[in-house]
């Protein structure tokens, strides 16, 4: 059996054995891909996987309607696997809640993919460390970040002003991101109104920057936010910039360690900054 057939067979088996009540994967919808929630083993044949599958299915684990269907088996590429490990490290899911149907590139840069099997979270974390430890942002993103860093503050501000001018505050980025699971988002609080809800420059800056900061050390580079943005805003430039800073300054790369402490939720007595002491 090829990778897809094995994946489908595993999905059907998990449902049949009752080890998963739902399989969350991707199906074909015309020329695109869409999520599918399979509760009957017979439906496993609709599962597909390829590079067009850009949604991070781990985002569904915050939906109460999906949580009533746990345990769930999720089709997960390396960034999605990292999201699942992150959610476990942040106590949002446990081993008993998910089975990871782990997929990944067959070899560096090839369009082919391979199926690693139906894994536990612990096995997933191990797989990530063994095979996907060196995941890095796309070179084009790093290049663009470098170019932006090299220009004047005024030019950089103009770049981001233009980018955020398109933001309509649809929050598709937040909806698509598995790390955004707050039941009431900061922008939805109004006593006080921390961030303007209007699709205007100052609120748009605040929203996008603060979301990037709230994902600091938590973004797994799945790029679902940028894929979700209907306006084509280059969100990954922000998220990668913050992720690189988290890695360099704090040694944190999200989603590899089930016992990791969160970047913005932990501190150390040995911190080199003295304001924290």
């Amino acid at each position, binding site marked *: 059996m090829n990778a897809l057939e094995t994946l489908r067979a595993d999905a059907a088996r998990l449902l049949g054995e009752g080890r998963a009540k739902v399989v969350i994967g991707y199906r074909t919808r015309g020329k695109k891909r*869409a999520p599918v929630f399979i509760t009957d083993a017979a439906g496993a044949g609709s599962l597909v996987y390829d590079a067009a599958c850009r949604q991070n299915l781990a985002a569904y684990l915050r939906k109460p*309607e999906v949580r009533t269907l746990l345990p769930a088996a999720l089709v997960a590429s390396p960034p999605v696997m990292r999201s699942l490990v992150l959610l476990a490290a942040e106590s949002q899911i446990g081993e008993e809640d998910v089975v990871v149907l782990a997929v990944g590139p067959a070899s560096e840069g090839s369009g082919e993919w391979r199926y690693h099997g139906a894994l536990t979270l612990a096995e997933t974390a191990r797989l990530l460390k063994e095979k996907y430890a060196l995941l890095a942002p796309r070179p084009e993103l790093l290049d663009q970040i470098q170019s932006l860093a090299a220009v004047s503050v005024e030019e950089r501000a103009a770049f981001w002003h233009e980018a955020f001018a398109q933001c309509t505050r649809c*929050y598709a980025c937040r909806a698509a991101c598995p790390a955004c699971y707050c039941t009431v988002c900061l922008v939805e609080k109004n006593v006080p109104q921390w961030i303007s809800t209007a699709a205007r420059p100052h609120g748009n800056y605040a929203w996008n920057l603060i979301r990037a900061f709230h994902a600091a050390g938590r973004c797994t580079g799945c790029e679902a936010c940028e894929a979700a943005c209907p306006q084509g805003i280059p969100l990954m430039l922000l998220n990668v910039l913050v992720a690189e800073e988290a890695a360099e300054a704090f040694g944190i790369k999200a989603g590899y360690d089930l016992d990791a402490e969160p970047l913005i939720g932990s501190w150390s007595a040995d911190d080199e900054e003295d304001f924290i002491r």
Partner: protein
Amino acid sequence: MKIVDVDKLSDLAAALAAKGYRIVAPVRDGDVVRLKQWKRGECVVLDAFTVNSVKDVLIPPSEVIGRYALDGDDFTPEAVAAEAPKTVVLAARPCDAAAMAVLDAVFNWDFADTFYNARRAATTIAALACRQADEQCFCTSVGGAPDSTAGADIILRPADGGKRLTVEALGEKGEALVAAAGEVVQEGEAAADAVAEVPVRFDAAALAARLAENFESPLWQTLSLACLGCGACAYACPTCHCFDIQDEGTRRESVRLRNWDSCGFGLFTQHAGGHNPRPDQAARWRQRVMHKFLYFVERFGRLACSGCGRCARLCPAGMAMADSCAAIEAAAQKAAKR
């Protein structure tokens, strides 16, 4: 007949701009095509689907509807005028033009919204008949057509293999625009190109009755499971008009803003006391579909959907209004057979 060469569209835009029109047209913006203010030198893109709709011109994502000068705890109201520059939307899709009837009805229901009406009066729509449709289009399922003239002041029709557009004014605003265009629009002959084929995907008229019967159906849970509750579909939709009103300001001045909102958001109907009449996405998705295909029909006699397909193109989670409508129709037919 009046015709304009497709490669003279920028000249057309320039001629209209010189006569005081703000030009809004589909232009390339990075990886997307957007309906935005055209600037000299930009190319008008005719064969792509824009991420936004003509709604943006009539109801901006955020606008000031009230203004107060503040002085400690006291205030003085200040006048607010609608921003309504003379505008032409060049090469709007017919589905967008048709959608405006929905907005016209809502913003003049009992109370006339002077902000909307000012912009509506100041806007001329030059719709471009569609030569191409994609798999998300469904105008023909909701009473529309790829060459519909509903809501348009001018209809541009591709001709001579896409090299020319015929220009037909459909009323005063259209005629004024053609006059303003001057020599770029010429007299001549051209053979109209075939219009896009848009297969009918469901029966909207029958759907209303089916929706009325299926309020409690468990189908809503299945149909909405993929929905992540963002506002992408509502914001892109040319007929969606729900809005929020928010006060913002400094110690010296506050403004009352009207901002886009979406019934898909979790807190849309949240009461201050804690109760939420639509506590899950199934209830919210049901509201979206029923508002467009049943309630709006009951109140205003027309569908609140023009089949433009943007919701399906832009949804990050593979949701589509047409898919839900077709699924409800299929379920009703299956139930009827039993």
